[in-house]
């Protein structure tokens, strides 16, 4: 089994050298999954399936998909968005709506009676986050590159079942 194949399964383990060619690297550590029902670890979160289905739709959008000169959806923006979600979301956090943008990036949106959160991924390491607290009417917008602590706190507090 090649390294790249061995590491396809779980993204946490891909911090091992995916680009090396050493034949001695073997399969990653896997987390056992209960065959009896849902457990706290070791299952694929529901948001992952929802997100991946949406990504498959968006990836088919080519240049000028909206008839107004928009760029094709950037795969690197999709991968980066997925990385942000993997870092920020709890397994039971609800999936965002994912909307393509004219510059090739994507916007992820969560909305509830209490808050709206929008995360615009322009390109890898370039993210704009917007939060509206509906109870107080407070708005906040900030830029992020690799650090998503505030987003994670927000999503886990407001959008996790």
């Amino acid at each position, binding site marked *: 089994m090649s390294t*790249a194949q061995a*590491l*396809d*399964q*779980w*993204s*946490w383990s*891909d*911090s*091992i*050298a*995916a*680009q*090396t*060619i*050493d*034949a*001695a*690297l*073997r399969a990653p*550590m896997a*987390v056992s999954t209960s065959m009896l029902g849902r457990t706290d*670890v*070791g299952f*694929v*979160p529901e948001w*992952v399936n929802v997100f*991946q289905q949406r*990504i*498959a739709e968006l*990836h088919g959008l080519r240049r000028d998909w909206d008839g107004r000169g928009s760029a*094709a959806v*950037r*795969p*690197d923006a*999709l*991968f*980066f968005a*997925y*990385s*942000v979600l*993997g*870092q*920020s*979301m*709890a*397994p039971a956090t609800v999936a965002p709506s994912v909307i393509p943008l004219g510059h090739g990036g994507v916007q992820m949106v969560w909305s509830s009676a209490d808050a709206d959160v929008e995360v615009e991924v322009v*390109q*890898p*390491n370039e993210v704009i986050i917007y939060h509206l607290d509906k109870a107080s009417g407070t708005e906040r917008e900030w830029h992020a*590159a*690799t*650090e*998503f*602590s505030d*987003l*994670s*706190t927000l999503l*886990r507090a407001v959008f996790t079942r």
Partner: protein
Amino acid sequence: MPLDRAGLTSRETCTRSHGYPAGCPNIGVHRFDITVNCDPYLRARARLSGMTSRPTDLPDFASPPIGEVSLGVQFNSLEGLLAPHLGLIWADFRASFPLLEQHPPLLPVFETFTNGGTPSLIPQLQILTSVPTPRVFFINSDRTELLQVQRDRFHHNWRKVAEGVEYPRFEKMLGTFEAGLTHLTKVIADIGLGQIVPNQCELTYVNHLTVPAGTKQSDIFAALLKPWLKAPMLSDLGAAEDGRVMLRYIIRDKAKAPIGRLTIGAEPARKLDGTDIVQMTLVARGKPKGDALGDVSEFLKLGRRHIVKSFDEITSPEMHKIWGKK
């Protein structure tokens, strides 16, 4: 073959035509100064030949147990880059890397952070395309060094293909990496594919730690690493059959902001000749400060510092003697 001050062998072969109907008049083995004028990649390598020196405060080993080293950069995907373009790119590297292999592309990886620590365990994201643009290896003639190119990555690897082959050292590899990336950037621009915008840097050391003769399976890590890691004996089951180690550390910049991670993995493995080893892989990956080549190099140097220091700190003094710690 001895290297001159520019890091080139004193005699190189030009294989290009350069527009001459009968081929380049320099075809054949000739002096490197003529070759430098012929080959674009070698010209770039010569321009960047000011090799940095090894930091004196880093631990140094005469015979480090290194099996493979990779210096790499991941950049924003060049969606216009198709398989035929890889052939155009290879033309400029062919004199130094005459062998070619094709492999499936690697998926993008990003280091992101929250104060919550461990991210969710999620499957790798796969985006299916009908014809993925491949990753190509440009390999040197003795198969010890290679360049990897794909739509969103450039890597330079060295690998130990036989006992007695000496690790060329990080500084020389960095020189080759910088020259390669500089020239790739130019070729990409010349073809009209856009700009290389780095988004992650990655440095990997794969070490093959030979298990000392007579060591019990349960004591392997304790023998190779410092005593902090010794698999406990269980009252009913006795010694562990084997085990693995995975550690992650956050790399921070001067302002203490997280910029990357150092990942250390160790697991039992076996070489092709049947020798039992522990394979220790150290990966430093993170975001460069900016888009310039110098920013990529700075991260790789920082990653090298963390890798070498951590390797020294977690391996045992007994093994340091075997590896000739200076």
